[in-house]
């Protein structure tokens, strides 16, 4: 919009320069931890001890990454975080798929088929977004026991779905509420059913909000530590738990480079998702999910 009235005065140019300076300065602030992590993860230990945080590695090495992936010890298991990495995927993929799908159907039913009490039901479900997770730890443990799902991957998926649908329903409801009702009522007059209308009319235009929901859920579930540590066992621990074990384990000398490499590995999937799909995320937010 500044090209509407573009004044090429020195003052305007100065303003432009300082604008970039502020933006880049902030970018550096946001990047600092990641840069330190990345730099540290490719330095040999001696360099870390001797050098400054931001010093470039003199002899960059991938050994810490290899060690973090497949050799580092957590407890007496020296198999790195690699195996746990796949455990996380086994939990995240079904949990994200199920919670997003349920959220989409809920949002659709609550906005386009406004039955009596729909608002109340939505309001009640929304509270699920806000419940602190420590509060539900013990009752959840007991419930999982009743269901025979304790310490299983299925149990963890269930937990994440249960506390994820509040968010996904919120996203989809706020998105669908901004879609004109005329589209749907016309189809209803033509005799199209509930699922047909969803499939034919709403699904094709829902891509932005699906992206938001999937990114949000993926990040939340991948990054979860509390449920992961409390409801998993030997075979099902997610990568965040392994990371916690790793950084809290040390053999005499704390291997910061391996810690950082493991942290990077644990962070990589969500990082990739944000970098690749960040654009669509902002677009999806624009499409209505945050409009109060």
């Amino acid at each position, binding site marked *: 919009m500044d090209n509407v009235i573009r004044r090429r005065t020195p003052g305007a140019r100065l303003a432009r320069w300082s604008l970039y300076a502020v933006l880049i300065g902030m970018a550096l602030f946001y990047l600092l931890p990641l840069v330190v992590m990345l730099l540290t993860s490719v330095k040999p230990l001696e360099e870390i001890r001797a050098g400054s945080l931001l010093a470039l590695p003199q002899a960059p090495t991938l050994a810490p990454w290899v060690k973090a992936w497949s050799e580092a010890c957590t407890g007496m298991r020296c198999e790195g975080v690699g195996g746990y990495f796949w455990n996380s995927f086994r939990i995240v993929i079904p949990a994200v798929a199920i919670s997003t799908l349920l959220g989409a159907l809920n949002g659709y039913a609550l906005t386009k088929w406004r039955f009596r009490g729909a608002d109340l039901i939505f309001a009640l479900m929304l509270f699920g977004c806000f419940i602190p997770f420590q509060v539900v730890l013990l009752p959840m*443990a007991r419930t999982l026991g009743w269901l025979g799902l304790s*310490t299983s991957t299925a149990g963890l998926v269930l937990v994440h779905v249960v506390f994820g649908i509040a968010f996904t329903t919120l996203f989809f409801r706020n998105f669908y509420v901004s879609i004109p009702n005329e589209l749907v009522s016309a189809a209803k007059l033509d005799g199209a059913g509930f699922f047909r209308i969803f499939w034919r009319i709403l699904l094709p235009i829902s891509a932005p909000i699906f992206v938001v929901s999937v990114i949000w859920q993926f990040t939340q579930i991948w990054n979860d530590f509390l449920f992961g*540590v409390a409801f998993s066992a030997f075979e099902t621990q997610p990568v965040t738990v392994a990371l*916690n074990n790793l950084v*809290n384990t040390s*053999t*005499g000398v704390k291997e910061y480079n391996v810690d950082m490499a493991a942290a990077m590995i644990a962070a990589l999937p969500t990082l990739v998702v944000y970098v690749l799909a960040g654009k669509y995320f902002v677009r999806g937010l624009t499409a209505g999910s945050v409009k109060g």
Partner: protein
Amino acid sequence: MRMLKRTLLKSALGGLAVAATLGTTAQAGEVEVLHWWTSGGEARAANVLKQLLEEEGHQWKDFAVAGGGGETAMTVLKSRAMSGNPPSAAQIKGPEIQEWGELGLLGQLDSVAEEGDWDALLPPVVADIMKYDGQYVAVPVNVHRVNWLWANPKVLEDSGVEQVPSTLDELFAAGEKIREAGYIPLAHGGQPWQDATVFETVVLGTGGPEFYRKALVELDPEALKSDTMIQALETFKRTHELMDDGMSGRDWNTATSMVINGKAAMQLMGDWAKGEFTAAGMTPGEDYLCAPAPGTQEAFTFNIDSLAMFRVADEEEQEAQRTLARLVLEPEFQKTFNLAKGSIPARPDLDMSEFDQCAQQSLEDFQRTAEEGGLVPSMAHGMAVRSDVQGAIFDVVTNYFNSPDMTAQQAAERLVNTANAAM
């Protein structure tokens, strides 16, 4: 309630009676062991047990949860117990064993205990902790001494300190010299349990074992607000000056490695620190020194690690549990484990010649103090009081230690309040 528990225990003896209520996912002959032996020396030591168990044909499923001195592991254990699916064995210790026993969740080990004649084998003070309601429910792994001072002789020498401080006054005098020579006098990690470790050691050094027992085990309000306690609290706070700025949240073994690397001169820490020295390839008496913490030569604060066995339904899993319990007390494991971990064996009948001088002295002091009355349970390591009381004491201690404004009188008052609330 009592009746109910008895019946429950009987049905456990019966074996399969509770099979329906305890969903088990483990397969035959597997023991899932929840523990927080995650630091280098500890993990290596636990690995020995794993190998021994596997040689006997059972499977060890390692469930290590690091962090917070076992706090995270305890959360996991509670969650698992709530879901009716506890691990078959877990690292539980001290009065907490009683609490789990009261909940009726522990299985008994009487057959193994009789076979191995544990009553004769174990010192009474150790055996008492392992029993709930007269039956063995846990097996002791080792005996740690908490009141140790570790020192790097090169740093001491560089700073012109002739010998390891044996009184608290000497400690502060040495601290000044070490500071001047450019080293950190006392390596420390700013976690509540580490603060509490230093605190209880100072209390012991100031007031002696009798006072310690009154104040921190029996929680006698008179002792807690006495002048001795005020003096101990003041001395405790002075130790802050001996530490460095970077201690916030530092793990104990990172602090130990500062002594190993020669960045710091000394550390007040239990003998698990020795595992780190050993792992670094150092020899006691030459590369590092161990001595009873200043002023506590006549006392021994003990911290006993143990594995408690949860009640399981599966016959083969029970067999594996019994095998595990038997192996834990066998000389081979006791030796290897304690050599690696820095502690002394839970059974005092072993040949100690392979152990280093620190461990030998530890065993000697253990037996001597047991007779003379200097043997006291460690408050900081959950051997003296219940976990809620312990937590409340930690709150007072760590808050006092870290806030410049709080006076010793105020801290003592709060300790008294804590004790009153616990009664």
